[in-house]
């Protein structure tokens, strides 16, 4: 603490300077985001057209074409990821919230936290050795597994947090009516926590939809329509990557258009999730 003899004015100046520095840092933090959103909007709107949503990619040199297959592919991959990651994550979260006050629960929590810090590319390598090498080819299934694993920690911890928020009086009321505990949890507690859990899921989906690295050598890429889970599948982020590092102007335009679609989807999911939470806390 400053010595009492230090002039008050000087301490005031330090205070104002420090506060100003914090504001400056915050502005610096937000500037890149605004620049990024601005460019994605400007370049993306200029490049977006109806054929982007309906046509397949054209071969190099031909102008035009779209990313219809990548859009569908992304939807399928994220759907697969949800089908794998959500049941496991939600039930794990229920366990942690309801029974998890023991060493096993702590271990699970710790592993979920650590798993969320594992680089997504490492998850890709893991799924490659586990699924791709077993099936002997790149496949949508492998991509779905990779995204599902990446979702798992978020879904687990969000569910745990929200199930824990459900007031004990609800549990007690259900139990007092003679409902077995497991049914009370499924029918009363989970149902109460559902809107909140849905919010967490939206954020998890938004994150999975933008993941690129783990898809590079699991779902790989595909220039054609494909809905079969044992074949390579195109996805929006991988397509953006391929096009962005290519030397062709038309592909760059397509990459910006795809970026706009992806950012819009992520943004909508994030804002919607926030609105749900806001609506609940405001009530």
């Amino acid at each position: 603490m400053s010595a009492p003899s230090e002039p008050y004015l000087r301490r005031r100046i330090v205070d104002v300077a420090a506060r100003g520095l914090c504001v400056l840092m915050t502005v610096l933090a937000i500037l890149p985001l605004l620049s990024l959103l601005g460019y994605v909007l400007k370049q993306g709107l200029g490049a977006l057209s109806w054929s982007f949503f309906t046509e397949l990619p054209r071969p190099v040199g031909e102008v035009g074409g779209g990313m219809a297959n990548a859009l569908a592919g992304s939807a399928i991959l994220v759907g697969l990821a949800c089908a794998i990651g959500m049941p496991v994550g939600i039930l794990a979260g229920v366990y942690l919230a309801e029974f998890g006050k023991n060493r096993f629960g702590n271990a699970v929590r710790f592993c979920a936290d650590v798993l969320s810090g594992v680089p997504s590319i490492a998850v890709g390598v893991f799924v490659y050795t586990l699924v791709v090498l077993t099936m002997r080819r790149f496949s949508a299934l492998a991509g779905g597994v990779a995204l599902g694993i990446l979702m798992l920690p978020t879904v687990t911890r969000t569910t745990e947090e929200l199930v824990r928020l459900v007031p004990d009086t609800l549990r007690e009321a259900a139990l007092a009516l003679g409902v077995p505990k497991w049914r009370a949890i499924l029918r009363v507690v989970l149902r109460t926590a559902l809107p909140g859990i849905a919010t967490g899921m939206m954020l998890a989906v938004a994150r999975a939809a933008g993941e690129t690295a783990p898809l590079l050598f699991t779902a790989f890429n595909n220039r054609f329509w494909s809905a079969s889970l044992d074949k390579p599948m195109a996805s929006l982020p991988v397509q953006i990557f391929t096009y962005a590092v290519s030397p062709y102007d038309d592909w760059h335009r397509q990459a910006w258009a795809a970026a706009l679609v992806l950012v819009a989807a992520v943004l909508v999911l994030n804002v919607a999730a926030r609105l749900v939470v806001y609506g609940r806390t405001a009530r």
Partner: protein
Amino acid sequence: MAASTGQAGADAQAAVAVEVNLGDRLFRWGTAAFAAGGVITLGAMAVEMVRASALSLSHFGPGFVTSTDWDPVRELYGALPYIYGTLVSSLLALLIAVPVSLGVAILLSELAPPWLLRPVSFLVELLAAVPSVIFGLWGVFVLTPWLRESVQPPLQSALGFLPFFKGTPRGFGLMAGGLILAIMILPTISSVSREVMRAVPSTLREGALALGATRWEMVRTAVLPYARSGIVGAIILGLGRALGETMAVTMVIGNRAEISASLFAPSYTMASVIANEFTEATGDLHLSALSEVALLLFLVTVALNIVARLLVWRVSRVSR
């Protein structure tokens, strides 16, 4: 049997109780099995990666991390240039991101008026939600041209005598990689530090203010010392993110495996080499070497995460 009705009732009740217990027990063990899923995944990941890199591990031994030769044609693999690129770009990212994110965290937890909180924290969280490949796209077409034209030439003319700023300003290179990583890990560091600062008991703040401290003196003498280990944890979490971040860095760092002191020089990271070469690996040894790079990355990030979580948990648990 001629048992009394009372006895039969008690039996029935006991039967129901057993059934209920059975349902509860099944439910408990069932959910526990799913909860084990994350633990098993983590364990399986470690095992699988060691298995996948066994060939390279036995072939090169510890020399893998000290050799600079990476030549699929001669089947020589040494990861030092990638390790160097990863470390330097991540440290550069920390150098930029730590002061900025601490500023944001202090503003959000100690200084900002309530009306400012929601929009600012929303924007910072949005920064965390933007997919990595979009940062890469922006990096390729906006950040690197800007660095090449408006940042690197003046830096060179002012500080060109330093080894860090030598060479042709290309835009693509270590500096672009570090900068884009800084932007991407900033939300992690700032949100975790904010969380930790929030856990500081408000009596400490009130005590400092009551003694006549200004706002900043309160932050410096009451909040920061209490939250210190948690903030260190937040920084380590950010470092873990930076080390493993793949797409954006791959797109801007230049992808050339060389070790140069200059921040203008192109470089290559561990995650990038996996992303670029894994699908085109020329043989078992190549694939195994890439797996070993992934294994190293996995082990380092897991270790960092364990340390960071312990630090953050310690601060936020005490106050709960």
